[in-house]
Structure formats: structure tokens, C-alpha cells
């Protein structure tokens, strides 16, 4: 059973009560202008941390995105990434491209494109995926037959129907989050970490799960937090690791997250 997560900005009054100076840069520094990042089929928008946090590519295993490292710090980092294994399962873009190129491709390329556009659902993440992927593949089989008979009109209809079928697949956060959730495993022996219980909440209007942890190494204690959210069948990870004093900055960045419309809606 997960606890409740409140993802929001503590007010200045609360900050003062906690003994933090109201002009604490982590709470007051102006964030960058919102930027829209499109790493897969679903864009994500957020305001990046202020100057002094240097951005770089982030590609930890199975995810890609951006991280901001505080210059001259003890290794404090704010990261936003997409776990692309869900993006790779989605065939919507490929089917859309196939529909657009249907009259331009030669038969051999058409057959190859059709094959590459087939959903694979082994093992399926849920019953809906298993059923809809099977139904979409039946439609694509018919499209292949229609192409063999050079009936592009019928093939187009079947591919559109397959795309519609696949748009009904929906993953819940609980079904997909375990693959990326932070557990503290695999760390070197000189690092100790205490990982808290996952908590559930909401971010940008969709369900979110957060994991907090404390990590000790090099004579310092680092606060860590990872927040997971699924929007339009894409899994995003927002993470912070650094000193306690900069955790509010991470919370402010997270508060600006929104999801502009993507190419294919589920």
C-alpha cells in the first residue's frame, strides 16, 4: 500500500516556519522559461533550473533526457528523462508514416514497413494490450492481403483500423513503474542508502509515484527523490540527488511540468 504524495511548492510561510531564509535561492531563484522537450511520442514541458545548473544529455540505462548539474557543487543533479521502452512499444507513428507513404513505396518496401509496424505484445503489460495488439495484427494481415491484390484503398482502411485499435491500449503507472523505480541496489560498498516507501499522488493532472532516499558517502548526506509519471502511455522520471537545501528547487521545477498534446493520443 502506497502512502499519499503531495507534490507542490511549500509556501514561504512554511519555509520560514521550518527555519529557512525567505531569500533562499532554492525557493526564490527565477526558473528558466518553459521549454518543450520531445524525446519520444509524447512531449513534456517544464521550466529548467536557473543559471548555475549546467545541462547535459542524460542516458542512464533504458532512459534518455536531460540533467542539470549544479556548477561547483558536491555533485547535485536534477534530471528529467523518459523511459523509452514504452515509446518503442507504440506503433502509432509507424502506422501513420505507412499511411502517408502507401502510394509512394514499392511492394517490397511496403511489406517491410508493414512488418515493422506490427505491435509486439509478448509479454503484454496488461490484458488490454494483449487483446488490442492481437486485433490490430489481424487488421494488418488483411492490409497485407489487400496490398498483395494492389488494393491500396482497402489496405489504407485496414491500417487506419489497426491504428485505432492500438490507440485503445493504455498502461497504468502501477503496471510499468517497477522497471524504473529506484531501489538503491547496485551501489558500491562505500555508499549507504536508506530508501523510503513509494508514495502516490498526482502530477500535472495524472497519477504519480515518488520515492525518496537518503544516501551517505564521502562524509556527506545526500537527499534523493525520484518521481514517476505516465502520460499518454509514456513513462517519465524526474529525479533529484543533492543537498537538502536544494530539494525545494527540484520541487519547483517539478511543479512546472505539463504535457502538451502528442502526435498519437491513447
Amino acid at each position: 500500500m502506497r502512502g499519499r504524495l503531495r507534490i507542490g511548492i511549500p509556501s514561504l510561510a512554511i519555509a520560514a516556519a521550518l527555519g529557512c531564509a525567505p531569500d533562499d535561492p532554492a525557493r526564490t531563484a527565477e526558473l528558466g522559461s518553459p521549454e518543450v522537450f520531445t524525446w519520444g511520442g509524447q512531449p513534456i514541458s517544464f521550466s529548467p533550473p536557473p543559471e548555475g545548473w549546467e545541462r547535459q544529455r542524460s542516458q542512464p540505462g533504458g532512459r534518455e533526457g536531460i540533467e542539470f548539474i549544479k556548477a561547483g557543487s558536491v555533485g547535485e543533479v536534477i534530471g528529467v528523462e523518459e523511459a523509452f521502452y514504452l515509446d518503442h512499444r507504440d506503433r502509432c507513428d509507424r502506422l501513420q508514416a505507412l499511411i502517408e507513404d502507401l502510394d509512394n513505396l514499392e511492394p517490397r518496401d511496403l511489406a517491410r514497413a508493414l512488418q515493422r509496424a506490427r505491435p509486439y505484445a509478448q509479454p503484454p503489460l496488461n490484458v488490454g494490450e494483449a487483446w488490442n495488439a492481437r486485433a490490430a495484427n489481424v487488421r494488418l494481415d488483411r492490409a497485407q492481403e489487400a496490398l498483395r491484390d494492389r488494393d491500396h484503398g482497402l489496405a489504407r482502411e485496414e491500417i487506419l483500423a489497426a491504428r485505432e485499435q492500438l490507440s485503445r491500449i493504455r498502461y497504468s503507472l502501477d503496471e510499468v513503474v517497477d522497471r524504473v523505480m529506484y531501489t538503491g541496489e547496485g551501489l558500491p560498498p562505500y555508499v549507504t542508502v536508506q530508501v523510503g516507501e513509494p508514495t502516490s499522488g498526482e502530477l500535472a493532472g495524472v497519477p504519480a509515484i515518488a520515492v525518496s532516499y537518503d544516501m551517505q558517502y564521502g562524509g556527506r548526506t545526500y537527499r534523493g527523490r525520484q518521481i514517476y509519471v505516465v502520460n499518454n502511455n509514456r513513462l517519465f522520471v524526474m529525479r533529484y540527488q543533492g543537498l537538502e537545501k536544494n530539494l525545494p528547487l527540484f520541487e519547483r521545477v517539478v511543479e512546472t511540468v505539463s504535457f502538451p498534446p502528442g502526435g498519437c493520443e491513447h
Partner: protein
Amino acid sequence: MPEGWQHYDHGLQHRFENGTSHITLTDLGPVLPESLLREIEHARELFRQDRGNDARTILHGLSPRGVFPSQQGWEAFERPWSKLRRVGGTRPIVVEEVEHAFTEAISRIAALPAPDLPTIAVAALEGMFQGAHREIARRQATTLDGVDALLIDTWDRLTHEARKRYLFMLNRGNLLVARMELGKFSEMEPAFDTLLSTLRLVQIQGPAS
């Protein structure tokens, strides 16, 4: 020329360098049916003057695939095109067959619609990216020396960093591209704009080659 910048003339490419900041202006060759026709007809004239090697040089410098919107159109063109590409080579050719191939290739290209500048520019950019994880950050139609041009900024797909600017324009059907090759965007932007503001298109007579 902005202060501190050096100019190197490499023929189809002009380089402008200031330390580690590099800007290039490159003629990427014919990208419209009209300019391809001009070059193919020029090659035909050379072939008729028994200058097969010169004709070959011209024909092998062309990349006509981009002007064919459909695969079928390209496949139909490839038949005469593959014959023409043998001109000036070591394999024997039949003059009448080559003449027929020239006629067919010219008629097929002449029937094509001209692609617009954004389509041409994006296709050229995709060729330049070559798998690099870049995306278009901004595009803006503009004019340069009275000619329509397209300004495109690209950046790293993941971080929105390493911004680079390109400017595309057509000159007699050839695609010209000015691009930031190396250097920091904020430092190069003024020089890029200054260099382009001095650019004048000179109409030369005869085939561009």
C-alpha cells in the same frame, strides 16, 4: 567581413574562420527540375562534342533522387539515368541508346513539379544530421539580397543545447546553405548575420558547372 574573421575560397565552399568559430557557405548543387535539366542538357552537348569524360563528370555530380516525389517516378527515371551514368566510362555504349536515354531523362524531369524551399531545406538538413540527435528549434522565412531564404536553427534533441544556425536559399536552382560549423552560438550569431548581410548573388552566364 567582421573583424578577426578569415575567408578561404574552396570553390563550391567558402569558409569563414575566427579561431574555433567556423561558418561555411556551400553550393550543394541543383535541387530543382529546372537546374537539373540545365545540367543534363549541358552534359548532352558535351557528349555530342565527343567529350564523354566531361559529360560524365557533370552527370556523376548530380543527385536527382530528391526531385522525385514518388518511388514509381524515380524507378521510371532510373532506367535512362543508369544508361547516362555509363557515358564516358570504359564500357562500350551505343550512341543512339544514349541519345534516347537523354531524351527520356529530360522529358521525365521536365514533367516534375518544383518542390518548395522548406521541403528542400529539411531534406538537406536530414542528410547533414546523419544520425546525430538533432531537431529543428526554429524556422523563419526571410529574404537575402531580395531572394527568398529560410533560416533554420537546430539543437540537440535531448538538451536543447549546441544550437546551430543554417540559412538556405536557391540560386538558379542550386541550393546554397550557410551554416555554423563550429563554435558557440551566442558568439557566432552576430558574425553569421553580418556575413550574410554582405552576401550578393551574382548571376553567371551558362551552366553553373
